[in-house]
């Protein structure tokens, strides 16, 4: 049989309050000047018992907060501080805050994080050594999150299975449900699956069970209390109803709040961009980062675990002059964002450590400072690299087309329209090839299977389609077999494992796992005019 550790909680809290009393009276008794070692030792041992007990029961806040007081006491004991009025006041307010914290934990009520953080900061300012406190600030955040998860409980789901003799013992179901209704919004669903045929039915027996949903900010204990009188006559399971929105948002909030302990999220990033590296367009980079960050912030909207990040795709020379830019939304998995968030938090931690060091600078800290700066630089580079990796992915909105059993993808940005062609709209010019009458102009028809030297399935222009594309103010009609879907595509270059191919800007993996080559409209036009270009191996200069 396992021991219910919570039975020991009361004893622990009782001991804690005794310890706090001891601490308080000893601190009161301290005389100004050098600290009385014996008195300090008594305070330390009392604080230790609180901390150790807290660790045993995993009251992390309590153990962390008493740890802070212990660190301070340790500094006093080793003679780094003289006892002053300010110091005793600080210690007393620390003890008081610890008492309040213990009461909150004991009664399971709201913890005043702001106050605790305030006291903690006062200790920090008073103390000589301070680096390890970073740990503490994180634990405050983590604890806060836990309590937010508790906030996410929006009610209780109760599976209520009364025994067959439930009504024989005089239990009143209506009264029971009525009491529940007083707590919050109650939905009752009856389950009559076990109801026997009428002739087998024992009139005084119960065959029913109920599924109750109780919504509202209700303590579980209150619900249990109501069922206490009927406890022995039923089977009961109570499960919390969690607001799924909150649950998922919490994760994101955790990331954001990890980023935010110092209040200045965006600035350090901008500093990075300014300080380092040859970026072609720093201003643009910064907006990108800001965009990303601002995407992280709206708490209510991040239900989808994949976070959409707006990516301004860059338009290279081969695309039209019509639109200078397009906004494509790419999907970045949360773990990538997590990684980024982790990097940022490390960056912020290092930065704050350095600034703390700077405040109480002494020459012997110099090596540490140098290490810290090197660390900062490494972190900065990491962040920058990973942002650049996201930035670098050339994403296009693509139209998938089919030509002679092969799929290709055309950047949507160069597509004007797709048409079925009537033979009467065609004009044939000897030596010039085919022209298609589009409104009041004639555009050359490029048969893709020809420029790509594929074995055609369709050669009759009326059976296929033409895609009107534009490049450099010039329109051409690409003759294709069929149009397939549209999709966003990450274009990978062929040069990584092979070489560049004329007419093709890269390759993308379609949703079905197959590869489609992406068509470079400008190069296809060039290829159409001069087929010998196909023989030229394309060089790597265009590759990213």
């Amino acid at each position, binding site marked *: 049989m396992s021991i219910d550790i919570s039975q020991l909680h009361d004893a622990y809290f009782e001991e804690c309050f005794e310890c706090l009393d001891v601490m308080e009276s000893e601190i009161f008794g301290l005389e100004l000047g050098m600290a009385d070692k014996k008195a300090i030792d008594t305070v330390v041992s009392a604080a230790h018992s609180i901390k150790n007990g807290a660790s045993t029961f995993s009251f992390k806040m309590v153990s962390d907060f008493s740890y802070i007081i212990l660190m301070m006491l340790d500094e006093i004991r080793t003679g780094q501080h003289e006892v002053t009025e300010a110091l005793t006041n600080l210690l007393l307010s620390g003890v008081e805050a610890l008492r309040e914290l213990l009461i909150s934990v004991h009664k399971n009520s709201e913890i005043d994080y702001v106050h605790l953080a305030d006291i903690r900061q006062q200790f920090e300012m008073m103390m000589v050594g301070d680096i390890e406190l970073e740990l503490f600030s994180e634990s405050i955040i983590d604890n806060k999150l836990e309590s937010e998860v508790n906030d996410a409980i929006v009610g209780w789901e109760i599976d209520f299975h009364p025994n067959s003799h439930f009504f024989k013992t005089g239990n009143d179901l209506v009264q029971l449900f009525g009491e529940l209704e007083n707590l919050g919004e109650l939905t009752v669903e009856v389950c009559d699956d076990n109801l026997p045929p009428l002739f087998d039915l024992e009139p005084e027996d119960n065959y029913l069970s109920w599924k109750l949903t109780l919504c509202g900010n209700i303590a579980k204990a209150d619900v249990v209390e109501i069922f206490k009188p009927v406890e022995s006559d039923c089977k009961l399971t109570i499960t919390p109803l969690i607001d799924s929105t909150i649950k998922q948002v919490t994760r994101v909030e955790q990331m954001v709040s990890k980023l935010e302990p110092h209040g200045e999220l965006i600035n350090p990033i901008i500093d990075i961009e300014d300080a380092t590296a040859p970026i072609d367009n720093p201003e643009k980079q910064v907006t990108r980062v800001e965009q990303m960050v601002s995407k992280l912030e709206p708490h209510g909207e991040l239900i989808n675990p994949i976070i959409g990040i707006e990516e301004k795709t860059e338009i290279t020379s081969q695309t039209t002059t019509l639109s200078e830019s397009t906004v494509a939304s790419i999907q970045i998995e949360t773990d990538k964002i997590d990684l980024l968030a982790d990097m940022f938090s490390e960056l912020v931690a290092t930065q704050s450590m350095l600034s703390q060091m700077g405040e109480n600078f002494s020459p012997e800290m110099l090596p540490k400072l140098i290490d810290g700066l090197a660390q900062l630089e490494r972190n900065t580079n990491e962040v920058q690299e990973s942002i650049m990796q996201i930035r670098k992915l050339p994403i296009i909105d693509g139209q998938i087309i089919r030509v002679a059993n092969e799929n290709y993808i055309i950047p949507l940005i160069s597509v004007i329209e797709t048409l079925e062609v009537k033979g009467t709209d065609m004009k044939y010019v000897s030596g010039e090839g085919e022209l298609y009458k589009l409104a009041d102009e004639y555009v050359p028809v490029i048969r893709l299977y020809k420029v790509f*030297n594929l074995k055609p399935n369709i050669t009759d222009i009326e059976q296929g389609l033409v895609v009107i594309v534009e490049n450099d103010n010039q329109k051409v009609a690409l003759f294709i077999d069929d149009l397939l879907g549209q999709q966003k595509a990450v274009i*990978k270059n062929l040069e990584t494992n092979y070489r560049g191919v004329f007419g093709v800007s890269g*390759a993308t993996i379609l949703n079905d796992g197959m*590869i489609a*080559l992406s068509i470079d409209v400008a190069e296809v036009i060039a290829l159409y005019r001069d087929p010998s270009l196909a023989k030229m191996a394309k060089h790597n200069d265009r590759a990213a």
Partner: protein
Amino acid sequence: MTELFADNDYLQRMHNAEQGAEQYLSFSLGDEEYGLEILRVQEIKAWDRVTHIPNTPDYIVGVLNLHGSIVPLVDLRLRFGMSAREYSPTTVIIVLNVLGETKRNVGIVVDTVNDAYDVFPEEIRACPQLGSTIDTDFISGLVSMDDNMMMILNIDRLLSVEALG
């Protein structure tokens, strides 16, 4: 030699490796047997649909999706001027790590994969001028077997960017 090839004789292999033997993967094209350093093999997989690359030599079968990267595929039969053979699910693709200016992945299409052999450096003989269709530049040596001969390919040359055309 035979005793060295005792199948799956793990201890023997360990011993051979200590003595300086290297493992080679052998495969067949028609009646000919070829070998390549086994450490260069990234993956062996069955034939899968590939995407054709326009305006490339016929032995460039296309590109295939290998865990998200775009890997070109070379049909060694066609590369060596042999007759083409229909691709089927039993056709084998060996994906290799090719070293050049950069490390690249290139797949080769072969008829069958045979076995892994321990070969001591002194057993590899220089390649005579064969006068065959195969450019001897691509063969780094010959190893004679019982009644056959294994040609060891220099894949870095054979599959270099320039040689792939």
